[in-house]
């Protein structure tokens, strides 16, 4: 057969009726999603649950004996069941659920931390932007930030002559240092390119603050905020132990004075959970706000 013969016989496409092949049905998205949820559960939820159960068991075994100084989990459940199952009961002015107490403490943290965030970012911007402010203020900040939160309390009580603003002040003074320092670092790290753009556009200082400084330094600022909220939550419990009121810190102190050890342990769990949630909350807000700020 010659080569041309091949060319002369164009293949006519045969039209056979198309056969319908039934394909295996794709997995329904519901099933896939359930599988993903199961996987997430097995990876992220199950391990800590198992470890917690084991720890509780160990604790139960250790504190069961007659000479144990701390109550075992079973006694905590028996004695403080009302605190565990109903966080929001109200049974009198000083006898309220731990959830409500936590809310009172959170309110103080919100005010103190909110003030610290605003003042801290502004001061941090000043220190980061101005060489002279940094030279003058940075050593002072570095010294003051090492002062333990509670050491401020007597001064605050003397100045405000009231416990509630004093507690808020302690939160403020505790949270502000990491916010200032991280903001200042973030602003010092604004790339020169962005500053050049701002100069060519002739952005005024206020526009520069909103349009360049804050977005560019946001990842640093949120690191500072996250450290700050953690420290605030540490400080409020300690401050409330000394100042009284209805906060969760005072509840622990009160329980200690009336020898209700199970209540203290329940309160500790509340504090831990709330601190964890606060940290994740700030991290989540930070992740949302700073999406896309990473330079490329």
């Amino acid at each position, binding site marked *: 057969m010659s080569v041309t013969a091949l060319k002369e016989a164009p293949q006519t496409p045969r039209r056979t009726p198309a056969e319908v092949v039934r394909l295996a049905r794709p997995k329904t998205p519901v099933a896939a999603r359930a599988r993903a949820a199961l996987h997430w559960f097995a990876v992220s939820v199950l391990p800590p649950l198992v470890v917690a159960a084991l720890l509780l068991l160990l604790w139960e075994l250790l504190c069961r004996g007659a000479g144990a100084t701390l109550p075992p989990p079973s006694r905590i459940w028996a004695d403080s069941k009302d605190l565990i199952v109903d966080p929001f009961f109200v049974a009198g002015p000083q006898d309220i659920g731990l959830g409500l107490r936590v809310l009172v403490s959170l309110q103080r943290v919100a005010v103190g931390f909110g003030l610290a965030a605003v003042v801290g970012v502004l001061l941090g911007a000043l220190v980061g932007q101005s060489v002279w402010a940094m030279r003058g203020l940075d050593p002072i900040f570095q010294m003051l930030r090492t002062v333990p939160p509670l050491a401020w309390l007597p001064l605050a009580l003397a100045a405000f002559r009231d416990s509630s603003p004093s507690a808020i002040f302690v939160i403020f003074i505790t949270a502000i240092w990491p916010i200032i320092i991280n903001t200042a670092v973030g602003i010092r790290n604004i790339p020169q390119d*962005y500053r050049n*753009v701002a*100069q*060519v*556009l*002739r952005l005024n200082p206020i526009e520069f603050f909103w349009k360049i400084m804050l977005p560019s330094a946001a990842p640093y600022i949120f690191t500072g905020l996250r450290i700050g909220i953690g420290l605030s939550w540490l400080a409020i419990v300690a401050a409330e132990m000394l100042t009284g009121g209805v906060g969760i810190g005072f509840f622990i102190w009160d329980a200690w004075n009336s020898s209700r050890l199970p209540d203290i342990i329940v309160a500790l769990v509340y504090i831990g959970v709330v601190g964890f949630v606060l940290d994740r909350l700030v991290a989540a807000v930070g992740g949302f706000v700073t999406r*896309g700020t*990473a330079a*490329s």
Partner: protein
Amino acid sequence: MPAYLQLSQIGKTFTRGAATTEVLKEVSLDIAKGEYISIIGHSGCGKSTLLNIVAGLTPATTGGVILDDREVNSPGPDRAVVFQNHSLLPWLSVYDNVRLAVDKVFSGTRSRAERHAWTLHNLDLVQMGHAKDKRPAEISGGMKQRVGIARALAMEPKVLLLDEPFGALDALTRAHLQDSVMQIHASLGNTILMITHDVDEAVLLSDRIVMMTNGPSARIGEVLEVNLPRPRRRLELVANPTYLKAREAVLKFLHERHRFVEAA
């Protein structure tokens, strides 16, 4: 030709402690309106410093810059810069990056709708209208540079300053962008001052090529007129004698008379 942008006797000395380095010495150049000027030289010869002085980002030690009969010594939107690394703000979309410049320059003179239209118009000019809602991280390097050009054009600058605008791009993308810039220059008639270290780019785009001697104390060594008619087409120029001659002249200047001396 009357000078539109005039660099007169510019000198720049950097002082660090007791050590002083003279980077630029007595650089004078008159640029006419609508002219496309390239500044070429080995790296470290102070060409970027010169551009920054024209932009107002770096103050000159001696001499000065006169633009449209006014001395300029601070940055402003009348001398828009396209930076080598695009310098787009990563937290803003492509549209918002351009809109920021438009809002800043025209907030007093144009309505909101006009500014919106002007932003889109400039994005279309660089063929980036389709990506207006993307963030800089989501587009390619060439596209980022296009947006940078759109942002600069949107300010309606008297002079467009390009600081090695295509230096970080691959050869094909660079050619596309060069064609775009030529088109824009042809239709808008901008006055353009471009820093480059690419000989072909300089010859293809420029009306005049300013060749700098090596630093320290760099000066203008030679100015070469490129007498090629516009519009210029890359492919037709490949064998064009004028093009080849200009190319040869620049290469000879850079590699024979002012060879780059490696720092010892």
